[in-house]
C-alpha cells in the first residue's frame, strides 16, 4: 500500500436482498483526503453502499478496496482505518459522554493511556468537555449527534463514512458537525464519504455521486453536474409558460426541462436567449425568475421521473 493508493476503489459493487436489488453496480474511486457526497432519494442504495464499503455487509457482486485492502478478505484491517456514523445515533443513554467515548475507544482497539488521550482530544474538538459527565439520555438530539461524531473520530480514522450525519438537526448543530469534519480533513487529511438529504451540504464536496433505484445516475464535481442541467435556471409560471418554453427551444437555449405545478423549470444555456426579454409584455406569464443552478435541480432532473 503506497500513499498514492486511493482511499476507496469500488468496481461494480452491488448487493441484493433476496430478489430485491438494493445496489446495482457502484464504481467509484476516491483519492486520499477526498470529500465525496452520496445523494439520492430514500431507497436509492446509499446506506447499502456505505455498509458494503464499511465491511458490514457482504457484496453480492463486484469488489471494493479501502486503502488497497479488500473489504471481504481484510475486514478487520479495513475497520481499523474507518470511522462510522450511522443514520441513527449509536450512543448509550445510560452512560455519560466520557464513558461512551471510552467504550468506543476500546472497541476501536485503543488501550491504556491512548484511551484517555483520544477521549480528551475528541471531547475538546467537539466542545463536549463541559458536559463530559452528563448522561447521554439527558442530552438533546443535536448533542447526542455531536457525541456520535466525536465517537467516530476519536481514533483518528483515515476514512470517515457518515450516513446522513445531520438528519433532523437544527442549523447550529449542523454547522458544528461540518466544522468538526472540516477540521478532521484539514488537520489529519481524513477522507470523508457522506450521504445527506440537505443538498446544500454537498455543494462543497469534491465530487457528488447521485444514486436512484440502486444505480448511479450522475457522478462528478458539483459544478460539472450543475452545468449539465443548464448555466441558469428559469422558473416560469402561468398559462403562457409553454409558449415561452417553445421560444427558448427555437433559439437552442434549453438544456433541461422539469414540469412544475404551475409551469416549467428550464435549464438554459447562457448567451443563447434572454428569457426576460422574450417574456416582456406577455400578460399570461405570471412569474418568471432566473437563478443559478443548484444540486437540487440536478437531483430532480436525474432522480425524479417526469410525469407524463
Amino acid at each position, binding site marked *: 500500500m503506497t500513499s498514492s493508493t486511493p482511499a476507496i476503489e469500488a468496481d461494480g459493487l452491488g448487493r441484493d436482498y433476496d430478489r430485491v436489488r438494493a445496489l446495482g453496480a457502484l464504481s467509484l474511486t476516491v483519492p486520499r483526503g477526498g470529500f465525496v457526497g452520496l445523494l439520492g432519494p430514500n431507497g*436509492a442504495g446509499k446506506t447499502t453502499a456505505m455498509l458494503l464499503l464499511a465491511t458490514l455487509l457482504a457484496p453480492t457482486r463486484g469488489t471494493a478496496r479501502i486503502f488497497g485492502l479488500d473489504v471481504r478478505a481484510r475486514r478487520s484491517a479495513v*475497520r481499523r482505518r474507518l470511522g462510522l456514523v450511522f443514520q441513527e445515533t449509536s450512543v448509550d443513554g*445510560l452512560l455519560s459522554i466520557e*464513558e461512551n467515548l471510552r*467504550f468506543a475507544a476500546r*472497541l476501536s*482497539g485503543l488501550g491504556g493511556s491512548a484511551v484517555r488521550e483520544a477521549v480528551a482530544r475528541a471531547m475538546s474538538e467537539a466542545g463536549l468537555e463541559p458536559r463530559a459527565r452528563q448522561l447521554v439520555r439527558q442530552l438533546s438530539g443535536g448533542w447526542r449527534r455531536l457525541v456520535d461524531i466525536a465517537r467516530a473520530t476519536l481514533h483518528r480514522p483515515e476514512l470517515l463514512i457518515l450516513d446522513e450525519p445531520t438528519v433532523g438537526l437544527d442549523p447550529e448543530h449542523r454547522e458544528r458537525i461540518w466544522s468538526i469534519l472540516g477540521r478532521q480533513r484539514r488537520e489529519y487529511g481524513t477522507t470523508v464519504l457522506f450521504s445527506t438529504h440537505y443538498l446544500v451540504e454537498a455543494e462543497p464536496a469534491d465530487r457528488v455521486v447521485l444514486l436512484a433505484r440502486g444505480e448511479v445516475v450522475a457522478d462528478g464535481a458539483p459544478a460539472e453536474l450543475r452545468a449539465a442541467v443548464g448555466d441558469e435556471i428559469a422558473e416560469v409560471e402561468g398559462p403562457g409558460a409553454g409558449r415561452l418554453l417553445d421560444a427558448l427551444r427555437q433559439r437552442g437555449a434549453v438544456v433541461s426541462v422539469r414540469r412544475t405545478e404551475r409551469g416549467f423549470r428550464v435549464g438554459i444555456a447562457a448567451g443563447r436567449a434572454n428569457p426576460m426579454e422574450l417574456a416582456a409584455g406577455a400578460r399570461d406569464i405570471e412569474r418568471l425568475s432566473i437563478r443559478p443552478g443548484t444540486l437540487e435541480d440536478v437531483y430532480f432532473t436525474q432522480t425524479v421521473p417526469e410525469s407524463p
Partner: protein
Amino acid sequence: MSALSAIHGIVVRDLTRASRQTGRLLGGLARPFMWLLLVGTGYNSIARLEGGAPYQAFVLPGIIVMAALFGGMLTAIATVYDREFGMLRLMLASPAGVPAVLGGRALAAALVAMLQGGIVLACAPFITPLPASAVGPAIGALALGSITSATLGLLVAARLRSVENFAGVINVVLFPLLFVSGALYPTAGMPAALRALARVNPVTYAVDLMRHALEQPVEFSAGRDVTVLLGATAIAFTLTALLFDPEQRFVGKATTRA
C-alpha cells in the same frame, strides 16, 4: 490486542449499565429470596427431605444457581435491546470481530450472575450452617454456573430479533431450565421422561455441583458436573458464534431505507 481492548470495553460498559439499573438488580434478587423465604418457609412445614433436612436447606443450592441463572441469562439476552437500539451494530463494526463481542457480553453477564448468586450465597448462613471449607468450592461452582448461564443466554439472543419476545423467553426457556434441574425438588422423584430431560439440562449439573460445594447429598461426581458445564459452555458459545448473523442488524435497515 484489539480483541482484548474490545472485551474490556464491553465488560466495563455492561457493568456500568447494570450498576445504574438498580431496580433490575433488586428485582433479580427478589425472585430467589421469595422462593427461599416465603415458599421455603411454607414447604418446611410439609416437606422433610433425606436425613430430615428442612426444605430451605435442600433448596438453597438450587436458589443460588437460580439467582445466577436468571441474572446471567437475562443480562446476556439483553443483547436484543442493544440490537434494537443501535449499540450492537457499533460493537459489530469494531475491528475485534464477532467472537470478541460475544466473549465480552458473556463475561459481563457472568459477572452479573456471580454478583446475584453471590448475594444469595452470602445470606446462606442465615438459612443453614455453612462450613468455612464450603465457601471456596461454592464460589467456584457459582463461577462455572454463571459462565454457563451467560453463554446459554447469548445462544437464546443469537436469533431473537425483538425485545417483545423477552417475556416469552423467560416462560419458555428459563422456567423449564430451572424446574427440570433438581433445583427445587429432587430429580429422583420425577417421572422417567422428566428425569431424562434433567440429565441433558446443564442447570442440573450446576445445581449438583453447588450441592457438592455445600456438602449436601449429590447425584453425580463433581468431575462429571464440571465436564458437562464446561462442555455446555463451549457448545453454546460455538453455536452462538455460528448462529449469530452479523448482517442481521444491518440488513433490516438497509432493506427498508437503503
